[in-house]
């Protein structure tokens, strides 16, 4: 029997809920951009295919929103139930963006409701399109605000804390802390990237299966264009995130890179394994790359884990998460780049199965990168819940029933996951593309 430890179970439960929520949150923040683009192009070019595209994407989006809403509600209540001491401290210091976030939800929810039920209610087509802007802004704003909260947990500023007493709180400073710029932009860029790749993946799959309606090609082209733009920006901002870590949270970067000794011209370690003496074997080593990631200069000094007491080290498994994220990031950028070259040179042909397969894989991989990125960011913060201020173990509930709750919630998520798949299948089976096209008066 494992001994009951509320802290451990609380961590697992939080990670499970957030890992599940982030799937829908990422889509919820990202998809409105794609729908808006499709509807806009449709109006501009007077091309009904894009109109149908926007409608079909919306059908899937709404299911994802529903699950985003309920899992988001779950995590926000859970934060108080599992981390009462943390939430008390957070209430004093970082409540502002949490509160702002609810306004963003409100705004999004209201206009999404209107958008969904007014496809043909306005005379001007632009009027309906304009309703999507608040949805897009609301989704983006909620991702923005919640990311500042998470940024605060990584680099808390804007208050004094002595002997358990908080003074001199400055909510604006707490919100715009050093982690905010890279965190917020990386999270948002990766949401758009992921949403675009998921849609590209679906379009590519249809083409792969031999459905060569021009509709699918338009869908693919639109989503791959968005994907390329955000694959590049995600990678660039990711590089800046590395520089942020090197300066403000060096232990996280060191753990992600298995970088034990402080040195100049540091080597980047890819993959590999560790023995009990922290000796690295079978890794791919790229000289100077870590110094470049951390400071942009090959000879720069990178702080190693040796500078921190061992009990303050983050778990070293985050190394693999980091590898996954970066590898997938490179892969996505490469795939969208190749697609573009082929498109541009006119050599694109829809029978190019290898490229199609790579695009199909890209959707799920992007989501995997999101998960890997968050797990690396969150576990890399351990043992702190608010870095340098409050330890995770001090923050947790002392309740005796967290394990039972964990089981209940896992059950809930499994049921939800299965239901989503079933419902999405039914929705698109009941209204196949041909039917939707016909409704709009095209073949």
């Amino acid at each position, binding site marked *: 029997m494992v001994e009951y430890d509320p802290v451990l179970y609380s961590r697992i439960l939080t990670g499970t809920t957030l890992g599940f929520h982030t799937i829908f949150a990422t889509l919820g923040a990202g998809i409105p951009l794609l729908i808006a683009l499709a509807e806009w192009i449709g109006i501009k070019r007077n091309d009904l295919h894009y109109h149908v595209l926007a409608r079909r994407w919306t059908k899937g989006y709404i299911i994802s929103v529903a699950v985003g809403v309920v899992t*988001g509600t779950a995590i926000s209540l859970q934060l108080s139930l599992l981390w009462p001491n943390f939430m008390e401290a957070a209430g004093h210091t970082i409540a502002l963006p949490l509160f702002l976030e609810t306004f963003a939800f409100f705004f999004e929810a209201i206009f999404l409701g209107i958008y969904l039920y007014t496809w043909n209610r306005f005379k001007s087509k632009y009027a309906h399109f304009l309703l999507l802007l608040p949805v897009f802004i609301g989704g983006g704003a909620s991702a923005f605000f919640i990311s500042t909260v998470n940024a605060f947990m990584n680099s808390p500023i804007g208050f004094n804390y002595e002997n358990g007493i908080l003074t001199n709180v400055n909510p604006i400073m707490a919100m715009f802390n050093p982690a905010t710029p890279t965190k917020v932009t990386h999270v948002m860029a990766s949401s758009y990237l992921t949403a675009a790749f998921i849609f590209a993946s679906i379009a590519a799959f249809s083409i792969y299966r031999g459905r060569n309606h021009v509709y699918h090609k338009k869908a693919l082209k639109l989503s791959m264009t968005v994907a390329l733009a955000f694959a590049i920006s995600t990678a660039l901002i990711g590089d800046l995130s590395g520089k942020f870590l090197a300066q403000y949270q060096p232990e996280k970067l060191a753990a992600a890179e298995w970088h034990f000794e402080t040195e100049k011209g540091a080597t980047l370690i890819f993959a590999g394994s560790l023995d009990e003496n922290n000796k690295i074997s079978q890794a791919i080593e790229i000289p100077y790359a870590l110094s470049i990631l951390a400071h942009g200069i090959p000879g720069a000094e990178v702080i190693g884990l040796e500078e921190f007491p061992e009990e303050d080290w983050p778990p070293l498994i985050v190394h693999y998460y980091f590898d996954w994220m970066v590898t997938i990031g490179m892969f996505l950028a490469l795939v969208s780049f190749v697609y573009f070259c082929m498109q541009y040179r006119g050599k694109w042909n829809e029978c190019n199965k290898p490229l199609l397969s790579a695009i199909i894989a890209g959707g799920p991989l992007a989501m995997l990168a999101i998960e890997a990125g968050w797990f690396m960011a969150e576990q890399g913060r351990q043992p702190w819940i608010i870095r340098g201020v409050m330890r995770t173990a001090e923050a947790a509930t002392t309740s005796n029933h967290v394990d039972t709750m964990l089981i209940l919630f896992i059950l809930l998520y499994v049921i939800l996951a299965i239901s989503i798949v079933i419902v999405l299948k039914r929705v698109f089976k009941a209204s196949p593309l041909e039917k939707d096209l016909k409704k709009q008066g095209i073949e």
Partner: protein
Amino acid sequence: MSYELLGITVLWTFLYGYVIVASIDFGAGFFNYYTSITGKGPIVHKVIDRYLSPVWEVTNVFLIFFYVGLIGFFPSIAYYYGTTLLIPGSIATILIAIRGSYYAFHHYGPKKARWTQFLYGATGLLIPASLSTVLTVSEGKYIFVNNGNVSLDYRELFTSFYSWTVIILAIVSVLYISACFLTYYAHKAGDMEAFHILRKYALSWSLPTILASFLVFLSISHHNWEHFSGMLDLSWMFILSSLFFLGAVFLILKKQRLGLSFIFVMLQYAFAFYGYGAAHLPYLLYPYLSIYDGFTNEAMAIALIITFVAGLLLLIPSLYLLMRLFVFSNQYVQGKK
């Protein structure tokens, strides 16, 4: 007005908003299921669906708003209630999750299955029951602090008369508020068949509502005398509340001015709700936590209040637009749009 009082008033207003919109929603879910097993489903569903579809997500946000605001203005709440309410809180969360997602699955999916309606209907009654325990617990004598450890006495909670009367009131109110609103909505839609059915529901839930309210009054006097005497000092509010109740029922009986009758229902609950809340002050949790010792720092309070005002400026026009398009638009309500 002090910041503390301003903060709690704002939050209480949002909770009131949640109670009204969520009751309509929860009750509608129940009637939806109930009518489908009694064979009257097709008549009533159209009215219910037309109203609920565009607004369900907004309902949920009211709750989040209240909760997040509470943590922001009174961070110590997280400590006291968070530690003790793990089980009821988690159960309420799961119920909310099931309800929200199955509503969406049911509604946006092509096949309408009976069992999703059941889930949707049943959770609609269980959620108010489980959420109302938070108010019950706030009355004290269930939560204890020993050597800095906070704990909840479950046995006391589940065996006390007071906590059951609150649960009953919560459920009955949900059905009453919802039926009154849907009666008005059906009338507006000109759907006379649905109107007659829903009006019957509204009338039959009116008496239980008032009985349950008296029961709660009675049991509070036993459970928490201090709160009860505070309520007696505000008895004019409760008298007004009862008068609005009579007015609402009268109009529904007469089938006249149903819009006004629903406003009466809202006023009935407003007076009772604010009366209860005002008498509860200054305590957030008897006798451990008051709005004064649990309050956030001044900088945060000001930031939150500014946000709130700015947010309202954005929200009120948007909500107005939503109402215009779906609730107060005759053409939409009647199914012409």
